[in-house]
């Protein structure tokens, strides 16, 4: 596997300390949406969860402390909690309805513009693998920020990212051979 190098500079929210919630929401909406889209592979659901994320974030905005992290990391953390809450409730609902064995159908091209092979390969990854790809590669958080959002160590982030990329690479290669 080749070395992973993120060439683009990582965006930071240095003005977050003085920014309003509206500023932060405007600036980081795409990041939150992108992360949720990769996590759920469902555009409509990502839309809903993004809205729920910002509603929750607005209620908690007074607790946000820019010295302890950027607004983007903070918003992504809330997005993850919101998504996990949804997954949890969804899991309970499925158990109640005994429909857990039937996976819901997701659109194959949940991210417009990606090659079909990559879209298919992404769909085979677990949600956990997709979220680390989203955070580290798509949204371009650094290792520490990603670790903060996921609640794990930076080393664990690197490990997860490496595994996800390896798996993605293999899937794409397999798809190419077929």
């Amino acid at each position: 596997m080749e070395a992973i190098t993120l060439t683009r500079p990582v965006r930071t929210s240095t003005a977050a300390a003085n920014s309003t919630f509206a500023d932060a929401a405007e600036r980081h909406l795409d990041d939150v949406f992108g992360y949720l889209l990769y996590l759920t592979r469902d555009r409509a659901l990502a839309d809903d969860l993004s809205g729920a994320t910002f509603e929750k974030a607005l209620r908690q905005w007074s607790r946000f402390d820019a010295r302890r992290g950027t607004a983007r990391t903070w918003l992504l953390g809330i997005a993850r909690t919101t998504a996990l809450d949804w997954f949890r409730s969804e899991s309970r609902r499925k158990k109640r309805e005994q429909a857990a064995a039937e996976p819901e159908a997701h659109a194959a091209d949940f991210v417009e513009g990606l090659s079909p092979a990559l879209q298919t390969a992404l769909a085979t990854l677990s949600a956990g693998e997709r979220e680390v790809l989203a955070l580290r590669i798509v949204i371009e958080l650094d290792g520490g920020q990603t670790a903060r959002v996921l609640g794990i160590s930076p080393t664990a982030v690197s490990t997860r990212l490496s595994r996800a990329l390896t798996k993605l690479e293999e899937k794409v290669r397999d798809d190419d051979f077929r």
Partner: protein
Amino acid sequence: MTSAELITELQAVRPLADGALRDRVRAIAATEAAPRAWRLPRPSLRRFTLVAFPATAVILLGLAGIAGLLDSGSTPPAIEAVRGGAGPLTQSSTGAQLAPELKAGASAADTATPPPTPGRAQRYSAQLTLSVKDIDALSSATQQAQRITRDLGGYIVTVSYATSDTGSSSLTLKVPAANVQDAIVRLTGLGKIVSQQVQIDDLQGQVDELTRRETALRAQIAVLSARLAATDLDAATRATIEARRDAARSELGKTRVARAQVNAEARYATIQLNLQTQQSSVVPAVPSRWDNAVDRAVEILAVEAMVVLYALVIVCPLALLALLAWFGRRGLRRRQDEQLLSAP
């Protein structure tokens, strides 16, 4: 396709929120209340802990210090008890509550004791308690007291002398009544007067009564002797008169002895002299206000430490349980999250 190419492609196509979502989020953000010009910073737990513990320690120290300063005016009870136990000795050292004649270091001339009344038989008893500097002074004063007694024509009835950390001696002295004033003056010069007591009982009445009785018995004996001198007495009468005269003579002898005893008692005054070493070495120095404050503050700190210790003993196990429960719940939740995220 390599990992680098995958990354390039993923980064090239960033998902963007559509207009509807953007409008919705803007609408949410529009409900944000106007930011306050200033708000209290929310400290992190670590920062709060870093500040809270020293602040609490400073507050506890401050409270102990303030309480110590406020209470420093009063003498510690233990010291008060020791000082109180010294009693008259302490009063002697201050001289605050003593009559002028009993002040510490009073000169011999100041010891105004009532003198015996000349020409009357009196029982004169004096009790003196003096304090001397140390054991050496006690020994010297005891010897001098005996010398003074002999010089004044008196004698020593009893002497007891005892020393350990402190010392004391007790002397019972008999001094001619005529010299008792001189004796008291000289004896009180041997140390500081702690206490002094003089008692005078008038014996002149007893002496007069015994004298009258003696005179009457002599007269009675003379009359009986005169009757016995007559030649016309029968044997029985003579025997009776002789018996009465013998009884009178016997009683006269007893009366003489009794009068002699009373006179002897009146001739010598009894002085009970008690000497004791000063106990200043065991009386703690009166602590300064600062010492009191520090002592009190230390006491309060000890109480505070005990309270904190008790609180820790009670709180720590509960806090540990709460921490374990929190870690357990977090671990469980993470595991559940991992399971949720492990599905495609």
